[in-house]
């Protein structure tokens, strides 16, 4: 009985994890975003400016994930990687 219930739970975890992975992949690709056309045009510019680096696509990906999460987290994230970098140095000095 206990073993069966644990197996059922694990099977459900695999199914939900699979569905969640599909959802995450779809939201990353822009299929679930409100402006899919813009997402497609962004990827289009990335291919036009393609010079072997992943600069433009990764930046948008970060913004999507953090923007969808909590506001203060995205600010923290931007502070680490974005334009507030100079301000951090000023505070340290």
């Amino acid at each position, binding site marked *: 009985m206990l073993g069966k219930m644990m197996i059922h*739970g694990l099977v459900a975890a695999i199914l*939900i994890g699979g569905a969640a992975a599909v959802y995450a992949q779809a*939201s990353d690709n822009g299929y679930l975003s409100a402006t899919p056309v813009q997402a497609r045009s962004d990827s289009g510019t990335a291919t036009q400016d393609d010079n072997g680096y992943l600069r433009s696509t990764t930046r948008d990906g970060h913004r999507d994930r953090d923007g969808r*999460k909590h*506001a203060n987290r995205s600010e923290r994230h931007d502070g680490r990687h974005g334009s507030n970098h100079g301000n951090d140095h000023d505070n340290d000095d």
Partner: protein
Amino acid sequence: MGVRNSARLHHTLLKAWHAWVAGAFLIAYVTADENTYAMHQFAGYAVLAAIVARLAGGLLAPAGSPLRLSRPDPRATLAWLSARKGRHPLFAWFAAALLAAVGLAALTGALSDGAAWMEHPHEAISEASLWLILGHIAFVTYMYAGKKWFGRIASRLTGLRLSILPKETTR
């Protein structure tokens, strides 16, 4: 015949619901990281939907159905402690506590999408509910399998003691 079939169906639904909420909580807990946020969000909403479905099922199910929510009763607990007969009251206490804790964890997680300050309560409640789940697993394991294991261990220990005792007395 029909009553038995419906009771079996309710038991199956209850098991399916248990698998749903356990699997969704497991995925939500494992993916609680910024890199896997979309998966965490999906699994968290699955947990919330499971809790809502369970509450709705508990309210709508007919009397005597296993889908009915079991209410923990302090008087019944005290009566059980004195008589030690019937269903252990901790089942009902654990069920109510788990529904409340996991439901609150899912609800605060959903709310923290709009209100960032809910993130800390969400993390605290999720951690607390994980310990509650571990306690629930330990309790259920003890109730259904642990008693047998303890009985076997006790019988082996007594057998071992009996085999050692004659040697000690001959010395």
